[in-house]
């Protein structure tokens, strides 16, 4: 976990720049304008939440940032370098854990480290880093366990450890932990915020749950329905760690939700 100390004082710099980005899906018989064009800046150490109804293109934007797809126009720039393909500097945490069942827990966590130049041919160092992340997730006793032996919440925590171990410049989260029950989710929100505070990691996450957005985000970006554009940005000025059931979080959630309700004849998020 070296090199993740909080930034020294001074204004936070721009980590990720999105300029004039749009995405148009073309198939044989139809053209869908899914996204934009839009501009957005994400600052170092910031947690930005994309919020909007289903199909507003917020997940598409996340895929563009991750490099799984190329934008139809515009440019995404991470620390001055344009994004062209997937890579561990913009690591994505998926809705489902996506752990590899043929590897045990610790080998899942070291998987990404094997691709990092600074860890090449240094298996002991890889294991050390993986163990420290597993410890942070309270999973140090399960490093030899197989994926199918873990509970749903544990799997997500291993996935989080795997995503953080290569020290990504930006962590992308596609709908955090939707398949889990409320108690486990509340625990994971706590873990995630602990990591936010401890590592000052830059995070971009997508959700259609206003409470989740208010609980996790420094800034919530509200999207319009298709084609997705930025309707409003809301700063959430609450101290961390935040409790998802805190009335102040609920207040922000109401405000975030209110931004959506102004939109006529569109499906509301469930």
């Amino acid at each position, binding site marked *: 976990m070296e090199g993740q100390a909080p930034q020294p004082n001074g204004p936070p710099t721009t980590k990720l720049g999105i300029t004039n980005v749009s995405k148009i899906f073309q198939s044989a018989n139809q053209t869908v304008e899914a996204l934009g064009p839009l501009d957005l800046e994400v600052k170092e150490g910031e947690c930005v939440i994309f919020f909007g109804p289903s199909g507003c293109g917020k997940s598409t934007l996340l895929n563009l940032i*991750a490099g*799984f797809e190329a934008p139809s126009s515009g440019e995404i720039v991470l620390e001055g370098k344009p994004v062209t393909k*997937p*890579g*561990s500097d*913009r*690591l*994505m945490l*998926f809705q*489902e854990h*996506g*752990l*590899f*069942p*043929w*590897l045990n827990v610790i080998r899942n966590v070291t*998987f*990404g480290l094997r*691709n*990092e130049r600074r860890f090449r041919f240094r298996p002991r160092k890889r294991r050390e880093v993986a163990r420290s992340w597993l410890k942070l997730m309270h999973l140090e006793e399960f490093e030899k366990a*197989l*994926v*199918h032996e873990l509970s749903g919440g544990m799997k997500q925590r291993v996935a989080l450890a*795997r995503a953080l171990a*290569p020290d990504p410049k930006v962590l992308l989260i596609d709908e955090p932990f939707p398949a889990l029950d409320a108690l486990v989710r509340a625990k994971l929100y706590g873990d995630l915020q602990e990591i936010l505070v401890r590592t000052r990691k830059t995070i971009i996450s997508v959700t259609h749950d206003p409470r989740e957005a208010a609980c996790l985000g420094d800034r919530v970006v509200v999207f319009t329905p298709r084609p997705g554009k930025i309707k409003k940005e809301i700063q959430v000025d609450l101290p961390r760690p935040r409790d998802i059931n805190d009335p102040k979080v609920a207040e922000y959630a109401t405000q975030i939700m209110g931004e959506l309700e102004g939109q006529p004849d569109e499906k509301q998020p469930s």
Partner: protein
Amino acid sequence: MKSNQAKRAVFDVLLFYVLIFAVWQALFSAGLIPEYLFPSPAQVGKRLWELAADGYLLHNVKATLERMAVGFSIAAAIGLAIGLLMGTSRIVNSCLKSLFLGLQTLPTAAWVPISLLIFGLSVHGIYFVIILSSVPAMAIATSTGILHIPPLYLRAAQTLGTRWYAMPACVILPAALPAIITGLKLGWTFGWHGCVSAELIKSISGLGFLLSMGREVNDAPQVIGIMVVTILFGLLLDRFLFGIIEQRIRIRWGLEQNE
């Protein structure tokens, strides 16, 4: 740890085989079929014992297994490589899939005449039959397994910084391993068929050779005895080698519940 239920099942199976031998013996005792065509279990057992006693049976079982070891290893390497190509390239897949499905319908013994034409009586002809009998099944199973890998695994590997040339070893083959093992098992069975068929005609050793020799000297106990041995070895390798590996992998991959 074996439960009572499992013990009971083993007992039932044993009982079933005892019953088969009893029916066999009863048919023999009824004398409906001439003895030289339909020997008793005891006669078959006696003949097998004679063959085993001077090491002749073991020598021939070894010959067949050695051919399988060589032929199947080559076939597995070819089948995996072609399957990997088919699984990762749409064009290769659409071209080869129909060809291999067609070849798979060909009875394995049908490869024997062409192998005689090409290789004469040399052992290479047997390898040829094993390889051509088993490669199509393994290639198709491997490619199908690869095409059914959950896209999530591939995306997860990409976002974790895996480069394209590392994908087969790090993700594609392990993710498709359950299907690949099933394919290997199927390929082994086809190869085994092909090997024994080829030995019938073009060999001076092996289980197939013992079968055809038994026929030539009108030795029904030997023919039936060697058939039983062939079944036993086929079953042994299928169930206890591939079967156990397959099940362990399926449990680990979360495809089957551990009982």
